[in-house]
């Protein structure tokens, strides 16, 4: 049970310090891996499931929490990600009107987002470490980038093609 509460706290803290659905990934990644509760492979699996399932992409943590703590873990994480966005109401009715256009506020958000992107790339390279940097994997990665960059192919289709390639090759 104390594990579950700790999981809740990790998820809440990460959600509070992110401004997008995947902005919490770097923090969650470090916190869970350092405790040995999740693996890079599980992160990759959870991200893939989050892409396939409906609703905001930020729901990938629900999938990860299910791997880590079963149904109770997923339920607590659901609460942890539902609470921070409600703070926007406080923001609008006070802080935003006063400080929203201050250069320092906008600067902080920009710096935060830049750092998230930098750490995010490092997390991706760690996931790739466990999968292996062989030419087959790199070709699949490249293929996904090309297909995704066209913005014409839905994410679901990209992952389906990758799955078929996987079945054919591995």
């Amino acid at each position, binding site marked *: 049970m104390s594990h579950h509460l700790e999981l809740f706290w990790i998820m809440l803290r990460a959600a509070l310090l992110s401004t997008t659905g995947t902005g919490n990934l770097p923090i969650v990644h470090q916190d869970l891996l350092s405790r040995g509760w999740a693996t890079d492979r599980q992160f990759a699996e959870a991200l893939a499931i989050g892409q396939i399932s409906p609703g905001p992409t930020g729901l990938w943590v629900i999938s990860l929490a299910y791997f880590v703590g079963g149904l109770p873990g997923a339920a607590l994480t659901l609460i942890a990600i539902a609470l921070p966005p409600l703070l926007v109401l406080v923001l609008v009715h006070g802080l935003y009107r006063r400080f929203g256009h201050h250069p320092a506020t906008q600067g902080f958000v920009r710096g935060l987002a830049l750092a998230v992107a930098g750490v995010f*790339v490092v997390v991706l390279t760690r996931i790739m470490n466990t999968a292996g940097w062989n030419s087959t994997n790199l070709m699949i990665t490249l293929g996904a980038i090309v297909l995704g960059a066209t913005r014409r192919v839905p994410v679901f289709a990209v992952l389906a093609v990758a799955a078929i390639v996987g079945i054919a090759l591995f």
Partner: protein
Amino acid sequence: MIGAQSFGGGSATLYWIRRETVERHGWLTDDDFSRYWGICQIAPGINILALVSLIGWRLAGASGALLSVGGLLLPSAGITVGLTSIYAGIRDVPVVRAAIAGVVPATVGLGLLLAFSMVRPLLKSAQSDGHASTLVAVILLLVSTIAALARAPVIAILWSAGAVSAVARWQFAPRQRSPR
């Protein structure tokens, strides 16, 4: 209330919410919607949830906000848990293992694309503030990547990047002339 659920990820959900609240029901004007969405960019957590709670609040107060967030989250979270538990049951079947071996590198590719699409507008807005801001942005990006490679605590990386950028923007941002 808004029993919002949609298939196909974040931008599809946003599109759907806009169509329902602005175009079909006329609960919000175009202007309101853009302003709300702007505020949600700096709100903590998932932006779409923040947007939905704002719209819910505006239409029906606190209960509206709670119902809208719940209405958006519960169905899609339920499906996510369902998919995950199905997957957990079949992950060791050889065919599934092979499929996942293909999906993982693709996830990395899509993730890189996501990181790129996060960085591009940030660098663009830094550019419009001038060369000094652009330089700060690029340095922040590089330093945070190196710090992450060195396994520095992520929270520390994020807060310091935010702090440095806040001070820099304050100093370098083009001043708006206040009328005297």
